[in-house]
C-alpha cells in the first residue's frame, strides 16, 4: 500500500464513515435513520412502561369490589391517559421506529429521504407527551372523558383541555411527517431492481399504513380543533343547545379511529410476514395476495367506522350497511392468517424468541379477530358494546397483537442493530411469562362483558368479583414481566455473543447482507437487486 493510497483511503474514511457526534448533541441533531429509529424505540418503551403503570393503577382498583385506592374521577383520568399514551406514545412510535431502522436497509437506501424532517418528527413527540402527562398535575386533573374525547363530557375537562388538544395536534403533525418521509423514501430510494412487488412485506404494509396516516390524522386534528373552538370561542359544532350535534364528533373521531386501528396493526402484519418465513425456512406463501389483502383492509377501514357507534341510534339502513361492510373485513384478514399458516406448513421450523412471539401473535390476534367478527353482528353488538367484551377484544388485537409483533420484531432485528445476540433463554422466559399472563389478564374479560359488566367503571357488583381478581393478577404478572424485556434489551446492547451478518440461518432481505452491527451508514452505494 503506497502512502498516497493510504492517504486517500484515510480521507475517504473521514468523509464517508464519520461516526456520530458525541454526547447529547448526537441525539438532538442527528439526521441518521438508525439513531432516529433508536430514539423512537426507546421513547416508545418509556411510554409503554408509563401507560402500563397507569393500567396497573386501574387493575389494582378493580382487584376487588368497592373503592379502595383511587377516586372515580382519578380512575377516569387513568383509563383516558393509559389509552392515549399506549396508542399514540407506545404502539405508533414503536412501529415508526422499526420503519426508520429497517425500511432504508430493506429497500437498499442510504437513509430516509427527508432526514432533517425525520429528526423533527421524532423530537415533537417528547414535547407532545410532556404536555399531555403534565396535565396530571393541573387543576382539575388530566383528561378523563376517555381517549375517544366524546363531547359533551370532554368539555367538562379542567385546565388540561387545551393541553390535550394541542398534544393531539403535535402527535398528528409528528405522524404525518413520519408518514410522508416513509412514502417518499419507498417511492424514490429503492435500489435498482427493487420493484414494488419485490419489496419486503414490512415495507409494503408500512407504505399502506403511511397513506392511512396522511388520510386520517388531519381528520382527528380537525375534530379536536372543533372541540377547542366549542370550548373557548363560542362555536356549537357539537353542542346541541346551539344547534350542534354531539354525534357528529363521533363520526369524525371514528373516521379517524377505525383506520387508526389498522395503522397500529398493519406494520405488525408486516413484521410477522418477515419472521415466519425466516424461521420456517420457506418463502412467504401468497406474497401478492398478502399485498392485495393489506390494501383491501386499508380500503375497507374507511367505510366501517360507524360500527363503533351501533348504539348511537342510526337509521336501520346505516346499521345494515356498517354491519355488512365490517363483516367483509374478515375476508382479507382471513387470507393473511391462512397465508401465514401455509408458510409454516411443510417448513422446517425452529422456535427462537421472535418465532415464538410470531406464533402467539397469529393465534391470539386471530382470537381478537373472532371477537371482532362477533362485534360486527349489530344485534349482538347491542349487548357487547361498551362492555368488558369490547375491552377484551381490542386488547387482544393490540397487546398480543400489535405489541407482541413489535417485540417479535425487536428480538428479530436486535442482533442486527447491536451486533450481539440477546440471551435466548431469558427471551423465551419473557415470552412464556408474557403469553400466559396476557391471557390470564384479558381472557376473563370476555366473560365479564358477556355477564354485563360495563367498561370504564371503577367499581362493580360482587358477581363480577372473581374474574376481575384473576384479570388483575394477570395484569401484574404481565406488567412486571416487561421489566425482563428491558433487561434483555439492555444486556444485548451492552454485550453478548457476536452476531453474524445473517444472524439467522436463512433470512431473506437486504438487511442481512450488511454486517452486524449495521454500520452507521449503509448502502451508500446502492445494491443491485435481481
Amino acid at each position, binding site marked *: 500500500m503506497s502512502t498516497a493510497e493510504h492517504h486517500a483511503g484515510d480521507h475517504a474514511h473521514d468523509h464517508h464513515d464519520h461516526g456520530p457526534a458525541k454526547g447529547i448533541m448526537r441525539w438532538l441533531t442527528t439526521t441518521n435513520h438508525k439513531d432516529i429509529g433508536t430514539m423512537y424505540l426507546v421513547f416508545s418503551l418509556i411510554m409503554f412502561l408509563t401507560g402500563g403503570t397507569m393500567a396497573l393503577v386501574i387493575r389494582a382498583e378493580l382487584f376487588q369490589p368497592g373503592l379502595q385506592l383511587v377516586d372515580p374521577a382519578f380512575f377516569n383520568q387513568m383509563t383516558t391517559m393509559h389509552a392515549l399514551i399506549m396508542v399514540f406514545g407506545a404502539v405508533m412510535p414503536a412501529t415508526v421506529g422499526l420503519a426508520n431502522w429497517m425500511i432504508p436497509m430493506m429497500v437498499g437506501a442510504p437513509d430516509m429521504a427527508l432526514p432533517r424532517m425525520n429528526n423533527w418528527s421524532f423530537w415533537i413527540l417528547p414535547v407532545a407527551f410532556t404536555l399531555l402527562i403534565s396535565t396530571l398535575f393541573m387543576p382539575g386533573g388530566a383528561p378523563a372523558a376517555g381517549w375517544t374525547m366524546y363531547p359533551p363530557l370532554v368539555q367538562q375537562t379542567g385546565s388540561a383541555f387545551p393541553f390535550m388538544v394541542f398534544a393531539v395536534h403535535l402527535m398528528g403533525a409528528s405522524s404525518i411527517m413520519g408518514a410522508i418521509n416513509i412514502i417518499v423514501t419507498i417511492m424514490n430510494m429503492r435500489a435498482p431492481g427493487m420493484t414494488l412487488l419485490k419489496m419486503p412485506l414490512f415495507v409494503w404494509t408500512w407504505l399502506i399504513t403511511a397513506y392511512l396516516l396522511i388520510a386520517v390524522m388531519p381528520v382527528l386534528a380537525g375534530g379536536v380543533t372543533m372541540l377547542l373552538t366549542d370550548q373557548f370561542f363560542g362555536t356549537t359544532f357539537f353542542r346541541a343547545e346551539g344547534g350542534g350535534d354531539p354525534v357528529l364528533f363521533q363520526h369524525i373521531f371514528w373516521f379517524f379511529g377505525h383506520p387508526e386501528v389498522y395503522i397500529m396493526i398493519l406494520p405488525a402484519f408486516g413484521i410477522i410476514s418477515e419472521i415466519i418465513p425466516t424461521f420456517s*425456512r420457506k418463502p412467504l406463501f401468497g406474497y401478492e395476495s398478502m399485498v392485495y389483502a393489506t390494501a383491501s383492509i386499508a380500503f375497507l377501514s374507511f367505510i366501517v367506522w360507524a360500527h363503533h357507534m351501533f348504539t348511537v341510534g342510526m337509521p336501520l339502513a346505516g346499521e345494515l350497511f356498517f354491519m355488512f361492510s365490517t363483516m367483509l373485513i374478515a*375476508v382479507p384478514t382471513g387470507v393473511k392468517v391462512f397465508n401465514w*399458516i401455509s408458510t409454516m406448513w411443510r417448513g*422446517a421450523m425452529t422456535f427462537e424468541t421472535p418465532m415464538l412471539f410470531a406464533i402467539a401473535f397469529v393465534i391470539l390476534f386471530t382470537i381478537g379477530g373472532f371477537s371482532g367478527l362477533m362485534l360486527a353482528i349489530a*344485534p349482538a353488538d347491542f349487548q357487547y358494546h361498551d362492555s368488558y367484551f369490547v375491552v377484551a377484544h381490542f386488547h387482544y388485537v393490540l397487546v398480543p397483537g400489535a405489541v407482541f409483533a413489535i417485540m417479535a420484531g425487536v428480538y428479530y432485528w436486535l442482533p442486527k442493530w447491536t451486533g450481539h445476540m440477546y440471551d435466548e433463554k431469558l427471551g423465551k422466559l419473557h415470552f412464556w411469562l408474557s403469553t400466559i399472563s396476557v391471557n390470564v389478564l384479558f381472557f376473563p374479560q370476555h366473560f365479564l362483558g358477556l355477564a354485563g359488566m360495563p367498561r370504564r367503571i371503577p367499581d362493580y357488583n360482587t358477581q363480577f368479583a372473581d374474574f376481575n381478581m384473576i384479570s388483575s393478577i394477570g395484569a401484574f404478572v404481565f406488567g412486571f414481566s416487561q421489566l425482563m424485556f428491558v433487561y434483555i434489551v439492555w444486556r444485548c446492547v451492552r454485550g453478548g455473543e457476536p452476531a453474524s451478518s445473517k444472524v439467522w440461518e436463512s433470512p431473506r432481505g437486504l438487511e442481512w447482507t450488511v454486517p452486524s452491527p449495521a454500520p452507521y451508514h449503509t448502502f451508500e452505494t446502492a445494491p443491485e437487486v435481481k
Partner: protein
Amino acid sequence: MSESKWMQLWRSLLGAGLGLGLAAPAAADWALNMPRGVTAISNEVYDLHMLILGICCLIAVVVFGVMIVSIILHRKSRGAEPAQFHHSTKAEIIWTVIPILILVGMAIPAAETLVKMEDTRNADITVKITGYQWKWRYDYLDDDVGFFSTLDRASNAARQLDSGIRPTEVENYLLEVDNPLVVPVGAKVRLLITAADVLHAWWMPDFAIKKDAIPGYVNEAWFRVDKAGTYRGQCAELCGRDHGFMPVVVVAKDPADYAQWMADQRREAGLETERAEAVVAADPAPAAMRVEMVEQNERGIDDLVAMGESLYREHCGACHQPDGQGMAPVFPALAGSPVVTGDLSEHVGVVLKGRPGTAMAPFGPQLDDLQLAAIVTYQRNAWGNDTGDVVQPDYIAAAR
C-alpha cells in the same frame, strides 16, 4: 316467536359439525356467557351470539388445528426438510370464497333480527328516559307520571372511598335504585331515550337493549317482557365521575299490579301539583320579602340544614364535594363562593336553572321546593358560609 329458517339451518349444520348445543342454557352461576334475557328479541340476540360464537369456534378448531399439526410435524429438530412452494391460486380462491359464504349466511339472520329490533310501531305505553349526571329520569308520557331513579342509599354509602362497608354485605351492590322503572308484563313498551347533560347509555342486558342517551336527540327502543320480575343493568357510556354508579332497574309487574301502581303514582303526583298550586295561590307575596319572614315560617334553620346536608351529599357532593371545596376548575368550591354567600336570588337561580355550557345541571325539574330550600339553606350556612340565611320552600316556588 318462531325461529327463522336460517337459524334452524345453522343449528343443524353446527350441531352436526361440533355437537354444539346452541340451545344449551348459559352457565349462569359462573356468569361465563351472555344472559338469554326475558324478551323474544333478547332470545334471538342470544341465538345470534351463540351462532357466531359457534362459527368462530369451529373455524378456530380447524385453523389452529392445522397450525398445531404443522408446529409438531414440520420442525427442524425432527429433520423436516423445508418445501419451497409459495403460491396456489386455487387455495387463495377457496379461502376467500368460503368465508364470504359463511358471512352471507350469518348476515341474513342478523339483519332479520335487526329489522325487528328497530320496529317501534304499535306500542302500548311510551316512557321517556332522560340521562343525567348521574341518575335516570323516567316519564310516563301517557300518564303524566315521572320520577328520578338514583343509586340506592346502601350502595351509595358502601361505594365511597374507604367506606369500610363490604360490598358483599350490600344486596344488589351498585345494581339497586330508589325508584325503578315499572312496566306491565306483556305490553309493548316504547322507550324514548335522551340526555340532559352528557352522553349516557341505557343498558338492560335482559332485554338486549343498549341505546345511547344523547342531548338533543331522542332515540327509540322497545321491549315486551313476558315474565314478571326485577331486571338490572347499568349506564354503559362514560358520563363522568360517577358513571359506574347510575344503575338501570326495571320491575315488570302483572297488568293488574301495574295498574294499581300507576294509580298510586298518579294520585301522589296529583297531590303534589295541588299542594304547589295551593301554596302559590294562598301566598302571592313577592319573593324578596320571604327571607325577612324567617321567624313566621314553619321550617327552622336546624331542620332545613339537617335535611339539606343529606340531600347535598346525594345530589351535589359528587362534584362540589362533601366539604364544599369542589374540584377546581370544573366544579367550583361552594365554601366561600361569592354566589353562595352573595345575592340569594342569583344563588337560587343557578340551582334552579343550572349554568348552560357547564356541568352545572338545572335542579329545578329534579327536586321539589322543600328539597331545594333545604339544600340552598345548607349551602349558605355550611363550611364557614355563615350567612344566617334561611330559605323557605315558597321562596323557591316563587323563583321557579
